[in-house]
């Protein structure tokens, strides 16, 4: 009787080893298949492929104020984007100028964008009635100094595009 139990236990022992090896081989089949087929590699060599790496058009990289070739932007200092921003990442600073007809009007002095507090929720872009804003596709935002993340978006010397009245 004792002998029978021993034989059974030994049998179980070897069966478990067999099952273990079989499941291991089964899993190795999958990994082995990919090992011999280099065409299935999906990883990219990131810093080397910088030149060819392209983000999707919709990708929200950083906010920019659209400028045309004559250094004109479309911002009319309505401040809607700054009010829509949930965490105060946008500051629109206006300055008053006297026009040729003698009337004073507000023009854009500085469009300050805090990349460090921006959460890329994307509420500012559709908020703009003039379509003056968009998200750029840049993604390498790491800097050594935090102050570099506070950006002035209007280019130096830029002005609002003249719209026919």
């Amino acid at each position, binding site marked *: 009787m004792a002998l029978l139990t021993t034989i059974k236990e030994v049998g179980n022992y070897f069966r478990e080893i067999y099952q273990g090896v079989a*499941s291991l081989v089964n899993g190795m089949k999958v990994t082995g298949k990919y090992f011999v087929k280099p065409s299935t590699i999906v990883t990219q060599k990131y810093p080397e492929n910088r030149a060819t790496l392209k983000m*999707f058009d919709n*990708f*929200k990289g950083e906010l920019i104020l659209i400028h045309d070739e004559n250094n004109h932007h479309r911002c009319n200092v309505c401040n809607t984007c700054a009010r829509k921003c*949930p965490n105060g990442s946008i500051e629109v600073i206006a300055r008053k100028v006297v026009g040729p007809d003698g009337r004073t009007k507000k023009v854009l002095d500085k469009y300050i964008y805090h990349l460090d507090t921006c959460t*890329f*929720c*994307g509420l500012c872009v559709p908020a703009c009635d003039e379509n003056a804003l968009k998200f750029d596709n840049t993604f390498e935002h790491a800097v050594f100094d935090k102050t570099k993340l506070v950006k002035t978006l209007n280019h130096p010397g830029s002005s609002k595009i003249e719209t026919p009245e």
Partner: protein
Amino acid sequence: MEETLMDLDLKEKEEYIINMGPQHPSTHGVLRFETCLQGEKVKWIRPHCGYIHRGIEKMSEALTYPQLVHLTDRMDYLSAHINNEAVALCVENAMGVEVSDRVKYIRTILAELTRLASHQLWWSAFGMDLGALTTFFYGLRDREKILDIFEESTGARLLQSFITPGGLMNDVHPNFQKRTKEFVKYFRKKLPEYDQLLTGNVIFQERTKGIGYMSLEDAISYGVTGPSGRGSGFHCDIRKIAPYSAYPLVKFNEITYTQGDTFHRYLVRMREMWESLDIIDQLVDNIPQGPTMLELKAVKPPKGEFYQRVETARGELGVYIVSDGGPTPARIRYRTPNFSNLFIINKIASGHKIADLVAISGSLDLVIPDIDR
């Protein structure tokens, strides 16, 4: 050094207390398990949360409804779309408006893609917790395809903030339909590999079968929802109980098992991935045309209290809004699935070995920022 009474007590019982976390790779976030051990055996566990508490509920009180949506991404970051949808649905129901069919279809497809991506990452990390590093690469390889779909349409890979009260932030990319179909076809071929790699593995089965038994009564009394609760036979799928968006239009099965151990919680998620693929298949070919955003003058729910629940990848997410009629909520409260799912761990892991604790906490699929909010 003077020995305290507690030290003496512990010495007599040969018990000792160790902390698993807050920086432990298998808790996937800042969570501390105060674990009392007797030898290698776990006597009790006290979870300590609050390490990543950001006060999202309080912060939301100062923001308008479209603005506060972006904070819900940061709760359960693996089901960002579904969290956004919960707030959007709650506000829409409160205001008594209904979005177009196109929005409903797209929301449902995005939610199911999110569920797939979340389960893929869970599968990857669960295998890695148990020592199978291969799963991590295979899971992330397929998740990348879903993130590409998200990135093309929404502009972000993880925290999309795409679904907003009244519709969607913008229309989906023209490639959305094509890419989603391609992905479903691709993933149907790859999903059997997951079973081949991990489910059938003897070591994995030995480590998960019969470990961490959760009874149906425990699941209900602790409020364990989602795949973790369904592994114990708790019919808690909100998509079935209280269908929202396009879920009334699709046919799918609610996966439940009655065994309630770690292995069956695992199986629920594996089979849910097939169901998600079926749901996407039914919807993606016939997305109707229509506006993607309602013309709302202002997002201001009337005075009152409103509640909406949705099924995230980890369980039931409830949004409770108290409105005073203004543009910001007077109080907003989230009933997050992970908070409820966490505290059962003392019940189901006590008596098991410390190594099994990793398997059990992995099978609950905890996302720590969702616990603390």
